[in-house]
């Protein structure tokens, strides 16, 4: 079934089986493998992307449900070879260890900052409550977001 999808500012005309999730199409049809699959049931947040300005789990949305929406994946963050300041802050604060949760974590934080450039610690914690990280203990991730806010 034909699907028109706008991902990272690019319009795609695709042929997609309606049973596929947005995650499957991003990774397998568009080769945007920055978005990860962890649990596949909305617990871990590794598949988080931004749709029409809010963070969502791409494993819990059918690709066809994203028709006409504006999708942003982690690949959209770096511009002209330059990392986004949020990505830089993650690196500077040691908020990346194994890295598997990082794309989803970045997109949850990005969605928060797009809506609220000056979030409280509580708001940061709620924004990433759906993203599991088994390495950092979250403290460094929260510090990285605060770092962006400060600058």
């Amino acid at each position, binding site marked *: 079934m034909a699907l028109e999808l706008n991902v990272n500012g690019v319009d795609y005309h695709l042929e997609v089986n309606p049973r596929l999730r947005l995650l499957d199409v991003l990774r397998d049809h568009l080769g945007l493998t920055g978005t990860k699959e962890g649990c596949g049931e909305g617990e871990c947040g590794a598949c988080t992307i931004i749709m029409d300005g809010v963070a*969502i789990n791409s494993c819990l949305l059918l690709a066809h449900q994203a028709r006409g929406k504006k999708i942003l994946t982690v690949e959209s963050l770096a511009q002209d070879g330059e990392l986004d300041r949020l990505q830089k802050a993650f690196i500077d604060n040691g908020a990346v260890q194994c890295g598997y949760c990082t794309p989803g974590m970045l997109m949850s934080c990005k969605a928060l900052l797009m809506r609220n450039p000056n979030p409280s610690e509580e708001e940061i914690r709620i924004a990433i409550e759906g993203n599991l990280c088994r390495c950092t203990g979250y403290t460094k991730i929260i510090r990285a977001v605060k770092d962006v806010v400060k600058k």
Partner: protein
Amino acid sequence: MEEMLFKAPNDIEELVTALKDADANTYLISGGTDLIIKLRKNRIYSGTIIDMKGIRSLEYIREESEHIKLGANTTFTQIINSPVLQQHAACLAQAAGQIGSTQIRNVATVGGNIGNAFAGADCIPALMAMDAQVKVICSKGETYVKNVADIILGSGKNSLRKDEAIIEIQFPIQGAGGRTAFGKIGSRSRVTIAKINIAAFVRLDGSKKRIEEARIFLGALGPRAFRSEIVEEAMVGRTISPELFNSFAAALTAQVDAAIAGRSSQEYKREAIRGLADEVFCKLFGDLSQEVKQDER
């Protein structure tokens, strides 16, 4: 790969048309956060999906002639952020705030939550406490209104026919003296599935001292949320006092014993609900008096 049929109605009229061919293998999807997991778990790769979420006209929160009306596609994030609901249906806003994660609340919808009929759903007892009704449309284009309790059969089953869809949820604005609260216990404090949840509505008399009316609903203690007469009897006609809190907590424990007697979770839940009693009591009456709550627990 087997193909599913995907229907994407843009408005109610197209929804009615899409419902005409609905059969046992037709699935209504809204936010998708429950259905997609179910389809994958049960290896359902064929049939028809009708995407409710594309109907933008079903995304609203309206105050209309003494009622509040929610479009079925209203997300939990929209419920949390609604000043109207914070004011008139605090229990619903509180319940929505404790559902899933930010990502889930951004897409999951109130209509979907009802249709999914999960025993531990957080919005359902809150809607029941608000005396909510659901507007359903069928493939003939006719609409009817049903009580939430009549739609939810429990354990993931609803009473809707395959050619019916939830389009609106409505409940009366509770006038003077009305107060509501929601509380939940799960295995952790956030992003958790309820082991017990409570939604409470009470109406106080003019002096704000005596409870005139109470509707208390409990979830996750059976196949579906239910109203607790035991707890209501312990509250109605009483004045707000530390003794009332003790009766409230004791009645909740008695209700747990009655609901899940002999279940392995009974011992845990009959104690745990006392903590929840504390939280809900404070949310309901915390502003009235510092001495209302007794710390002898």
